[in-house]
Every structure is written in C-alpha cells, then in structure tokens.
C-alpha cells in the first residue's frame, strides 16, 4: 500500500478520512514498512466497512492486516444496535472463534530434550490433525446441542479438563445466548466426527520454549520464565463453524442488508430476525471452538502425563480471534454496549477491565500471537491505551507474504521438515504438500508485527516463544 494514499497522524497511525458513504474514518495502526507491505485491498475494505450503519468511532486495521472477505483480516469494527448497527458473517469469518490457547507445562527446556521425540510422536498419535482427520468423540443430537450451549464448560463437565481452566478462557469458556436451533442440520452433520481435531492449514499444536522475556514484571505475573516449556494450540470451530459461516453468508447476501454494491459486505441489522439468528448460531459455533480447544487440551495433558509425569499443564490463556462480542466501551464519553467484530484480531483488555479474571486484573489480558513452525510466536499483554485506540484490540499473527501456489514452487515439504529438524524443530505431519504451503518463508515477519503492536500501544510484548515440536494441521 502506498503510504501517500493515507493521512499520517503519527509514525504508527494512518487515517483514511471519511468520503462518500463512509460514516467514520478508517484507521490503520502500523509502521511505514508494514504499511508499504500491506495489500491495497486493506484500504479499500476498511473504507467499505466504514460505510456500515451504526459503526462507532472508526473502522480499524491492526498491524498484520491483509485482504479478507468484506472486512480485512486484522479488522476491528464496533456497532451500536440502537443506531441501526449491523452484524456481518464476513466480519467474523468462516472459522468462527478460531483462536490460540497456551499452556504452561512446569517443565524447563533441559527436561524436554530426552523425551522430545517421544512426546512429538505421542501428540501426533493422540491429537487428530490434518484434512479429514476425525476424533474419537461422537455426539448424539442431544449432546451436540448441549456442547453448542456449553462450550468449554460442557467439555469440562464431561471430564475434558479442569474447572480452573475456565477462569483463563475468554467468557469463562462459554458464549451465552447460543442457539443450537439456529445451526443447520448440515453444520451439525459436518461436526459429527470432528470434535477434538486440529484441522489443517495454519492450525497447529506446538511445544515451545520461552526464548526471550521483554517485560519481566508481566512475565512473572503470567508465570513465564526463560526456558520454560509451554504448549500452544491454534484451531477453531471446525466443520460446524465453517458451515455456519457458509449458511449465513448466503442468507445475508440473499435476505440481508447490502449498504454498497459489494456482496462481501452483506450483513444484517443486529435487531433484525436474521441478525438474531446469526448471533445465536455464531455463539453456538464459538462454543464449539471453545469445547474443541478444551478437548485437545485434555488429549495433550494425557500425552504429557504418559511420557513426562513431572509435567503439570495449566492454562495461561485462551483467546479467540474471529469473533463478535458484546462489550461495554466508551464512545464520546458515554459507556455504550457495542457489538465488536474482530476478524483476525485479538481482544486485548488492559489492566482493570472488569471482564478479566481476578488473577489478571492488575496486569491485563494475555494476547497470544501465533507464528510459523520455523519462526516464533509471541505473548503480549493488553494495555490501557488500547481501549481508546481500537476498542482494546490487537493483532493475531503474521499473515502470508505469498500464495500457497507460490510456496509449493519454492519449497518441498520433506526438505523443510529435514531442515527444521536440524534446527531443533520436530515437525509431525500427514502431508508434505501441506508443510510446503505453510513454509515459514511464506509468512511475513511476526516479530515486526508484535513490535508494531507495542509501538502503537495496542499491546506490549511480554515473551517470545520458539517452536520445538510442531504437530501441523
């Protein structure tokens, strides 16, 4: 993107002034280099989002923003239902409530060396990963509806986890007001064999080492020390979420509201019947994602218990980055209840936010930014400044720098796996083509994205994590 096409408000804040049908400005948070590397489509899509009814303050793009579906990925927009505000299936995405959870293990890196290969194998065998993988859990129709209402709370009631996991999961592991009756039969059928599965593409399960601390005080509050071993899980609502996205994108295109002639931006007023149906289905899909990550957590704990009995896996945090949540934010000095869309963006509450659990009240929310199997991931913390900047939101990952087709021309999966093994990273996969498409070199620099988040004061870096074992989805 040409920085000249934007108005530079500071080194890290770039504006698209409202013109035409735009109701609010578009604001991109990033340094000049990231702006220059951004797709032109981000500007176009952000300006389009700014035309939607009921939008508050601005349409925002995070430092990792890239071309998405109607909304840019890395896009944030909040709507007031009493001002005609809308909800958009494209603004949430197909993989509803896709997110990352990170677990402590109580192990140091030297304790992992002797059992790393065995653990990699055990995790690869116990956590289904890749296209078409199926889980051992089969749910009846009634159980499916219970899961869709209960999320991670349901999973824990079934023995997949510990009650204390819920305190460290957004919304205590359960999206309220989910409506399984608004989820199609097709969506439920698609999920029938997929509970407790990782999926494919950029999804992963990693054993990681805490390689660097940036903020020692917050790291201590999060329980992170150098050379700690942690486990991160990146996945979402699987087939059910994908089908809910498919069903409601079509419904919104056919019956919904189209503010400008761009079908990608199809949406529905929050107060409409369609908007309410989508909200009910989206929350059910959110619970599916929360239950899924909770079940995978249980499978990971079981594998660790078998190989390294000294391990104790406790949850650092679970964040979703494809969501629409009801939150209270201040607009023009007044507290308002808004529907905040975050598409490829992470909620990042700063210290003192009443929705944070007591153990995080004084520090702020952990923000988990996923990287690639060959580079690094980051733990950040929400900052108080983020509330005014972008409704307490931050980035979620690096984003691709090249297409999948280009990546398969540049890399061979087998060679990548060998190369990473030599660098101390064990990859387990069922598809070498999948590995080539997900080559670390096909992604932008996640370190630059994390640094930009800190420079913009959206979130502050706490720790850098490097992969040791990656079960590739």
């Amino acid at each position, binding site marked *: 993107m040409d920085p000249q096409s934007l108005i530079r408000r500071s080194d890290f804040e770039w504006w698209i002034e409202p013109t035409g049908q735009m109701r609010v400005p578009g604001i991109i948070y990033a340094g000049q280099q990231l702006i220059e590397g951004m*797709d032109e*489509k981000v500007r176009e899509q952000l300006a389009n989002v700014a035309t939607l009814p009921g939008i508050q303050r601005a349409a925002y793009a995070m430092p990792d923003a*890239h*071309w*998405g*579906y*109607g909304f840019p*990925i890395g896009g944030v927009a909040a709507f007031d239902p009493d001002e005609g505000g809308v909800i958009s299936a*494209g603004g949430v*995405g*197909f*993989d509803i409530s896709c997110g990352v959870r990170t677990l402590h293990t109580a192990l140091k890196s030297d304790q992992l060396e002797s059992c790393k290969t065995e653990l990699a194998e055990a995790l690869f065998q116990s956590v289904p990963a*890749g*296209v*078409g993988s*199926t889980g051992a859990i089969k749910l009846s129709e009634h159980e499916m509806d219970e899961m869709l209402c209960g999320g991670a709370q349901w999973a824990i009631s079934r023995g997949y986890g510990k009650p204390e996991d819920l305190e460290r999961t957004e919304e205590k592991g359960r999206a309220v007001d989910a409506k399984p009756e608004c989820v199609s039969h*097709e969506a439920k*059928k*698609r999920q*029938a064999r997929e509970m407790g599965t990782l*999926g*494919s*593409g*950029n999804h992963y399960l990693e054993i990681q080492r805490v390689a660097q601390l940036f903020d020692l005080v917050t790291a201590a509050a999060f329980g992170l020390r150098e050379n700690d071993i942690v486990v991160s899980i990146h996945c979402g609502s699987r*087939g059910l979420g*994908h*089908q809910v*996205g*498919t069903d409601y*994108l*079509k419904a919104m*295109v*056919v019956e919904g509201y189209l503010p400008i002639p761009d*079908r*990608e931006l*199809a949406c529905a007023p929050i107060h409409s019947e369609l908007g309410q149906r989508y909200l009910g289905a989206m929350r059910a899909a959110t619970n599916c994602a929360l239950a899924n990550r909770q079940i995978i957590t249980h499978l990971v704990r079981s594998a660790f218990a078998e190989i390294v009995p000294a391990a104790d896996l406790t949850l650092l945090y679970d964040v979703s980055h494809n969501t629409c949540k009801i939150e209270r934010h201040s607009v023009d000095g007044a507290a308002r209840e808004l529907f905040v869309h975050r598409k490829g963006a992470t909620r990042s509450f700063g210290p003192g936010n009443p929705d944070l659990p007591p153990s995080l009240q004084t520090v702020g929310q952990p923000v988990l930014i996923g990287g690639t199997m060959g580079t690094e991931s980051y733990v950040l913390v929400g900052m108080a400044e983020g509330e005014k900047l972008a409704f307490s939101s931050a980035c979620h990952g690096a*984003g*691709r720098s090249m*297409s*999948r*087709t*280009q990546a398969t021309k540049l890399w061979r999966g087998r060679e990548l796996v060998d190369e990473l093994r030599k660098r101390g990273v064990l990859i387990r996969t*069922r*598809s*070498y*083509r*999948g590995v080539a*498409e997900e080559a670390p070199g096909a992604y932008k620099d996640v370190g630059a994205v994390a640094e930009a988040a800190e420079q913009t004061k959206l979130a502050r870096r706490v720790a850098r994590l490097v992969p040791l074992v990656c079960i590739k989805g």
Partner: protein
Amino acid sequence: MHSTTPATSDGDSKMGWEHFAHGSDIGVRGFGPLLETAFEQAALALTAVVSDVSSVEQVESVEVRCDAPDTELLLVSWLNSVIYEMAVRGMLFSKFGIVLSGCSLVGRLTGEQVDPDRHQLAVEAKGATVTSLKVARGQDGQWVAQCVIDV
C-alpha cells in the same frame, strides 16, 4: 495469475481450470465453452486446492442439487455443495457433471474415499466465498466461473 495446469483442447473449444492468489487463501477459476463446463472445471480447481486431482480415482458417485437467486451465487452454492460432500463423506472428487436449469443445478460428483498417504492432502476447504466472484462469458465466447475459497 498462474495456471496450475494447462487448459485441455477439445477441437476449437478450450476448457480448464487454474488457481489465482488471494491473501491467505486461494482463488479457483474454471473456464469452458459452456457455463456447465466452467462450473465443472471450477470444481476440479477446488479439488486441486486439497489434493492432486490426478491422484483421485473415480470409484463412486454422489448427486447434489442446489439453487440460488442468480448464476454467480449458484457457483458459490455449487462449490459449497462439493465442500460439504467432501467433508461429511470423507471423499475427494475428480469428475464433475452438471445439468443446469435456470438458477438451479443437479450435479454428479465422482471420486473416492480419502487416503491421506496417497492423496497428500494439503489443506481443507472451509467454504466458497463471494470474494472475486465472477461468472461471465468473455469476448472469445468462453465462460469463466471463479471465486475465492477460504482455507
């Protein structure tokens, strides 16, 4: 734009498929002398997102029906029907035949059960989107049917 497979020739009529780039995801494009052919080729491009089309044997068939308010949304519905059948049956398809009637179609998908080792599955298709959605006939008379697949 880069063609992942050469178009095949059928007399003067060409038909084929290709992928095109989209940020994190992937676009599928089918083309042919008839609208039906373009839809069928777009479905082949969809299979190629997941696996090598030539590795998928034609063992069993599935029938799907879909409709939409217009031809472009019919392409999205068609590809989403293929994605759905792939997901719930655990199958891949390498041959597609459709009969169009206005904005409705009946499709026949032929393929086989997934074999992860043999098919080297790259990535699963989550859904067909309305992004870069286009169904049109060019000046050369060729039909083009395309959209982006979220993977």
